[in-house]
């Protein structure tokens, strides 16, 4: 193979790699192989060959196309064998690299904002007792900090799902014919020792959706703490926040340092404390995410006070769709803990018929009860 072309291909795959596409050396050699099979004077064929071998997600296609066009622009005019002179990656087109950006920010912040250990201070039990009942809305900043630590220490053991996959077991309802037969050969075809199988148990996927609009302002940061603690103890957790629009913060909450994770998630969000369009946000979720993140036996947890500025008819439609697709739809309302609470808010009243579990989340006690409730879900 022409060495210019070879170098260009290497440069091309390296550029893609730098832009965030995860390309293995095997993929690069495959692409080189492919170039010998197709007509490399045909730009379209080169494009499709490269795309089918180097890209394996639909989201990456636009980025790929940009880089491809940039790279093979000259090839259009002159020969594809001409040497590329400007091996510059199109930096402005790089996808957001959360982890990386978060690291830089952490480094920048780290100099001024030293983390203060407050665990000892928060650990006194009488304090904690009193905190259990106090409403989040009425807490002082210091109390909120203590609550944050307590939420961090909570353990979540959300109900599991029995899958259809079977595994060997000492006892069970189903016979494991294969192993039973194997042991039967020892006894001349008499199945004396029976082997069993049982269904495998797996964690349920969990989808968290939090309202961060103005009316929820007091609770939103605490809710992110709550999301973080769930996301750290479960494998399959997807987190979203919404106000006037929906933002996915799953990736941010994966950071190991809770303060950074919550800060990072907070930074992603553009519409803190704005208005609420629950219906529209759910519509976005239902169309763009539901099919991918609501998997088998998923539990969807919504945290919101139900103040809806938009059309409550839309909310009804989206709630119905959502409820039909998940195993359990849990709605946590910070206001419903008050004894005088009635679902008078229009949005809440509209959504309520489609909610499986409607629970308060106004103090630590209610969070603990939530944990118990989620454990017991069938």
């Amino acid at each position: 193979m022409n060495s210019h072309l070879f170098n260009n291909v290497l440069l091309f795959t390296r550029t893609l790699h730098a832009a965030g596409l995860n390309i293995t050396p095997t993929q690069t050699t495959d692409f080189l192989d492919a170039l010998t099979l197709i007509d490399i004077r045909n730009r379209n064929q080169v494009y499709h060959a490269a795309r089918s071998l180097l890209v394996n997600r639909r989201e990456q296609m636009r980025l790929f196309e940009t880089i491809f066009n940039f790279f093979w622009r000259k090839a259009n005019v002159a020969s594809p064998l001409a040497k590329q002179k400007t091996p510059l990656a199109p930096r402005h087109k790089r996808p957001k690299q959360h982890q990386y950006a978060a690291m830089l920010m952490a480094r920048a912040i780290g100099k001024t904002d030293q983390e203060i250990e407050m665990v000892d201070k928060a650990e006194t039990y009488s304090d904690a007792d009193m905190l259990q009942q106090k409403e989040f809305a009425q807490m002082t900043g210091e109390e909120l900090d203590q609550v944050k630590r307590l939420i961090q220490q909570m353990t979540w053991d959300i109900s599991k799902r029995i899958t259809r996959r079977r595994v060997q077991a000492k006892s069970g309802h189903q016979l494991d014919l294969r192993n039973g037969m194997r042991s039967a050969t020892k006894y001349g075809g008499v199945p004396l020792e029976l082997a069993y199988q049982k269904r495998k148990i797996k964690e349920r996927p969990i989808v968290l959706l939090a309202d961060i609009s103005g009316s929820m302002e007091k609770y939103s940061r605490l809710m992110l703490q709550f999301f973080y603690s769930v996301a750290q103890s479960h494998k399959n957790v997807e987190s979203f926040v919404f106000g006037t629009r929906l933002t996915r913060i799953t990736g941010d909450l994966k950071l190991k340092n809770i303060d950074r994770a919550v800060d990072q998630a907070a930074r992603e969000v553009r519409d803190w404390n704005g208005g609420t369009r629950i219906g529209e946000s759910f519509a976005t979720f239902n169309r763009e995410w539901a099919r991918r993140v609501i998997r088998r036996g998923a539990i969807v947890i919504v945290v919101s006070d139900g103040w809806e500025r938009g059309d409550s008819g839309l909310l009804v439609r989206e709630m119905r769709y959502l409820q039909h697709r998940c195993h359990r739809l849990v709605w946590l309302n910070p206001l419903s803990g008050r004894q005088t609470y009635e679902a008078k808010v229009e949005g809440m009243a509209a959504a309520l018929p489609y909610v499986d579990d409607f629970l308060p989340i106004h103090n630590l006690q209610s969070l603990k009860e939530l944990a118990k409730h989620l454990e017991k879900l069938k």
Partner: protein
Amino acid sequence: MFNSVEETVNKLSDQDYIADEGLATALFLSLKMGKPLFLEGEPGVGKTEIAKVLAQLFETELIRLQCYEGLDTNQALYEWNYPKQLLKMQAAKQSNGSEETFDVFSEAFLLKRPLLHAIDPNRSKSPILLIDELDRSDEEFESFLLELLSDFQITIPELGTIKAEHRPMVIITSNRTREIHDALKRRCIYHWIDYPSRQKEIDIVKTKRPEISDQLAAQVVDFLQEVRKEEFYKLPGVAETLDWAEALGHLNATEITPKMIEKTLGIILKYQDDVDKLSGQGIEVIMERIGG
């Protein structure tokens, strides 16, 4: 086997499958390089169809494995025929009266499932192996598949290793209800099948539903192309286009009218909420946009 991308497009079109250059390139490379073709896309855009077309084209067998949750090696690969084994052992014991064990783990007692069929060394020609809707299976099956697809051989502990003489041409489809692991995708040629362009879709309708007039075909496609610009839970795919065209044919329609659309809405949209949204006013708005 094809010799160029152009030939691929033409041969497929001979079989009434209209493919664009992207799909043809991916398919051509997949066949040439002996790698599985991984097709993703919305339901009803012809992912499964391509496997059927290839089987006809190469006059070879199509082996289909429909994935579902809990799919395991017993159903995908092989299973032993337990009743037969048991009877054989009992019979052997009665006829010679000895306790001597009889070998029941041999090929005669093996039930072959699709994947084992596909790599059967006794084949004279490569079959097409269609692994349909892989996203419905679970991660455990995916990692098993990864192993099989890398060298097309499997080991049955009681029998030994079975290796394909003629490697199957593998086509994997996914509706993307979940993300398939990158490790598997990287071993494949990946292609996202989009909804076809207007002209391509008209060609598809004309080829597959020759009984429909050109005018009606164009109207049907125009209408559905507009519907796809709207927000519905489930957009109509090419399968719906063809079904609808056929239905209109049965109803002796010469052109689409709001009344006719209203009656046949259930063929285009599959959710009651979607039907409610389009019905009445919605239909008229779209009819206006396509100038009908």
